[in-house]
């Protein structure tokens, strides 16, 4: 189970009490579904399998009172997976109380916060830990306990975060695909901070809309969400990769300029504390052509450049890469959409092709398709151990 009781803290217990007292009538919603993930090639490691079935549920409860000035939110997620024990996991994505007043918002409890503008990777987005075992694209996040105060003023929106408790990244297990050559053992994780998982992290973000510009400036001080993975001995005595969590300071800037059908995007960070201080950026555009060929289908063309000044020593495979993508929004009754993208390394033949598509069936059922191909990956690339992990994934979800 992915929930660390120490990490979630007393905040959660307090919220639960408060929640049950305040709630008379709220709203349940959410989704349940099944997923099939099939791999095109035989696995690299004998413990791995050709295909995996799994089932998941995500119930949510929301309630507002005092003329919507106060709200509580709860969202849980759980998955039961075939073979991969690490992917059988559960998490509280949200459990928080929110209060809105004149020019301010308080949010206390577990929640999810997104920062950033680009599509190929999310450099600036740092508040929540990645639930990597869910999806290799890193867009699934674990709930983060926090106290968040938002001030809305003429000069912009200022967000203060006190992050109470650290969530460790999830990784595929020994029998799972899409993992490094050695499985990651999260039990003996090493923390730079003497307070380990109980270290309190801080973040501050200023954001403002200035005409066509959206500008965000942020600073984070705390334990890095992305660990360095170093070879060691796992809890079971077998060789494994052990996560090492450094304490970092990261300053970030994100900008989007919206002019006509063009979105110009930039995300850049400067990080100290994880090896030598480094900088990284993602920059590019999205251009939308409305109603291509009189069909009512909108086509978005995306291109981004991904850079990390550590070069070959970077802990990311995207140190000098180019992303190109096509997004289709069919604007039909089924809400059909698709995104086809490629990220290509400029220094080798390595490239990842990904396809995401979804459509609704009837009133409440949605079919999602996801596929990824890892091609031309050289032995020096971080993705080398995933070179035979091309996969297609189908998910059928019922929304209630």
């Amino acid at each position, binding site marked *: 189970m992915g929930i660390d009781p120490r990490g979630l803290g007393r905040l959660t217990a307090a919220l639960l009490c408060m929640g049950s007292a305040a709630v008379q009538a709220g709203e349940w919603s959410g989704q349940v579904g099944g997923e099939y993930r099939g791999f095109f090639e035989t696995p690299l490691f004998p413990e791995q399998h050709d295909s995996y079935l799994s089932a998941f549920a995500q119930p949510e409860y929301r309630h507002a009172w005092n003329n919507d000035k106060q709200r509580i939110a709860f969202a849980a997620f759980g998955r039961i997976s075939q073979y991969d024990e690490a992917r059988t996991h559960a998490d509280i994505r949200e459990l928080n109380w929110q209060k809105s007043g004149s020019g301010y918002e308080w949010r206390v409890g577990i929640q999810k916060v997104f920062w950033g503008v680009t599509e190929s990777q999310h450099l600036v987005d740092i508040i929540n830990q990645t639930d990597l075992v869910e999806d290799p694209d890193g867009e699934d996040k674990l709930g983060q306990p926090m106290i968040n105060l938002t001030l809305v003023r003429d000069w912009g929106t200022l967000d203060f975060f006190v992050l109470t408790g650290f969530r460790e990244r999830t990784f595929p297990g020994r029998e799972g695909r899409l993992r490094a050559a050695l499985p990651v053992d999260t039990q003996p994780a090493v923390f730079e901070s003497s307070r380990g998982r109980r270290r309190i992290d801080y973040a501050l973000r200023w954001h403002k809309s200035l005409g066509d510009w959206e500008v965000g400036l942020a600073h984070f001080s705390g334990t890095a969400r992305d660990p360095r993975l170093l070879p060691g001995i796992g809890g079971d005595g077998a060789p494994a990769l052990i996560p090492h969590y450094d304490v970092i300071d990261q300053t970030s800037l994100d900008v989007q300029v919206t002019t006509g059908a063009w979105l110009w995007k930039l995300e850049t960070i400067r990080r100290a504390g994880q090896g030598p201080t480094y900088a990284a950026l993602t920059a590019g555009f999205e251009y939308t052509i409305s109603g291509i060929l009189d069909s009512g289908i909108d086509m978005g063309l995306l291109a981004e450049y991904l850079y990390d000044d550590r070069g070959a020593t970077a802990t990311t495979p995207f140190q000098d890469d180019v992303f190109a993508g096509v997004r289709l929004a069919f604007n039909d009754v089924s809400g059909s959409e698709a995104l086809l993208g490629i990220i290509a390394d400029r220094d080798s033949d390595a490239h990842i092709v990904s396809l995401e598509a979804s459509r609704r069936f009837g*009133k409440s059922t949605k079919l999602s398709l996801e596929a990824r191909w890892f091609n031309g990956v050289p032995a020096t690339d971080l993705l080398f151990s995933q070179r035979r992990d091309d996969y297609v994934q189908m998910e059928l*979800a019922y*929304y209630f």
Partner: protein
Amino acid sequence: MLKRLPLLLLSLIAFNAHAETPEEKGLAIATESDRRDRGYGDFSVDLEMVLKNRHGDESRRKIRVATLEGKSDGDKSHTIFDEPADVKGTALLTFGHKVDDDDQWLYLPALKRVKRITSSNKSGSFMGSEFAYEDIGSQEVEKYTYKFLREEACEGQPCFVMERYPVSKYSGYTRQVVWTDKAEYRPWRIDYYDRKGSLLKTLTWKDYKRYLNKYWRADEMFMLNHQSGKSTLLRWTNYKFGNGLKDADFNQERLKRGH
């Protein structure tokens, strides 16, 4: 009464000396229609959309809208999607502008992401319906140029009929023909002509009700696409005026509440 006669005559002469062109008359009707709807302040409303294809298969959408009247610039509005269930919590914030493209932010609840989106996509379908974004967006006078055509009866009452031409180059229409009643300046019908100049859609209004003794809102709007045979019915319920909404209620933090 007689004392005023010279003045009246004078103004009639002045009027005739500068005869109103069809363009001026069209603009005057649009301006008057806009003027009569001024001063409402704010309103909130629930909307159900019934989408039908040519075989009669139905699908439904439910959304809630809150609008704050713009004083010097366009209106601000906040739209929350309740159905279908997979888009529940998705929300849209719009800052309308009189001539420039609107500013729009979309909130995606699964990612908790607020995304500034392009509003140049005027001709795109709103939620798979027969309404394009430009059909449901704020109808500022400045967004069109006008030409008065004629007077004729519509829905059993005397009406103005005029053409209007979208100013935006992103519009999906070459022209629209609008029927407005002479008594209250309410729209009753619009014929939309596509980029090739062919009749594409017809929108009709039904069951107007008066709010705050002044502002007319229809209970139903029906859009029929003549080319595809599809239609969309909008059912507006629960109109509430004077909610005391302020500019501060229309920001990205409000979007994130997701309900």
